[in-house]
């Protein structure tokens, strides 16, 4: 399942919902991305996430489908927020559940790597010196490309 929303989410409740649903689940992997209070250069006072409504949902749905094809998964949840967030706030949640831990762990890493470079979100950081658009990182491209079949 995918959700694109402005509102915060309760990761614990989502994980509980997924692991309680199905007694075939042997492993639940999850990842939460959060707004940091500083990057390598500067303090961060706020982060704004812009996205492309319509295409975002399509891309996330496609990523879920690809994960379900490549790994044996009992459940997948991707929640991605947009709008203005402050340090410490949650940005993204990925949960994958499988009978086997390896499938859960690998697919969770796959999804978060792909979200970084392949989902139509753009981050703007506010710092004491002004605001700027976050540049994509070469290491994120590398992490995403290792999943190319």
């Amino acid at each position, binding site marked *: 399942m995918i959700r694109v929303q402005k509102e915060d989410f309760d990761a614990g409740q989502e994980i509980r919902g997924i692991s309680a649903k199905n007694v075939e689940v042997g492993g639940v992997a999850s990842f939460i991305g959060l707004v940091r209070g500083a990057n390598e250069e500067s303090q961060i006072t706020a982060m704004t996430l*812009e*996205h492309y409504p319509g*295409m975002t949902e399509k891309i996330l749905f496609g990523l879920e489908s690809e994960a379900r094809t490549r790994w044996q998964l009992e459940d997948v949840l991707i929640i991605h927020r947009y709008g203005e967030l402050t340090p410490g706030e949650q940005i993204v949640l990925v949960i994958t559940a499988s009978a086997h831990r390896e499938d859960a762990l690998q697919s969770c890493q796959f999804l*978060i790597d792909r979200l*970084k470079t392949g989902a*139509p979100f753009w981050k703007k950081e506010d710092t004491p010196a002004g605001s700027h658009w976050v540049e*994509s990182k070469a290491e*994120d491209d590398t992490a995403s490309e290792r999943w190319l079949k």
Partner: protein
Amino acid sequence: MRILYFGWVRTNIGLGTEEISLPPHVENVEDLIEFLRDQGDGYRAAFENIKAIRVAVDQEMADMATPLNGSKEVALFPPMTGG
């Protein structure tokens, strides 16, 4: 045709979406960007480095050579920074 801008492409141009009637010589994405570049200073700044521009045609990732005939929506934006 509906054109959408995101990230610093949007902030350079100063708007997020516009409807444009394309002249007949605009056949693909590259032609579109060449055409837009002449629409003003903001456009010129946004499309100064075409290598930094990513594009989606009708919400599917595309490239500079993608033809536009029959397309309804083109989005131009910087590399994505999700997750």
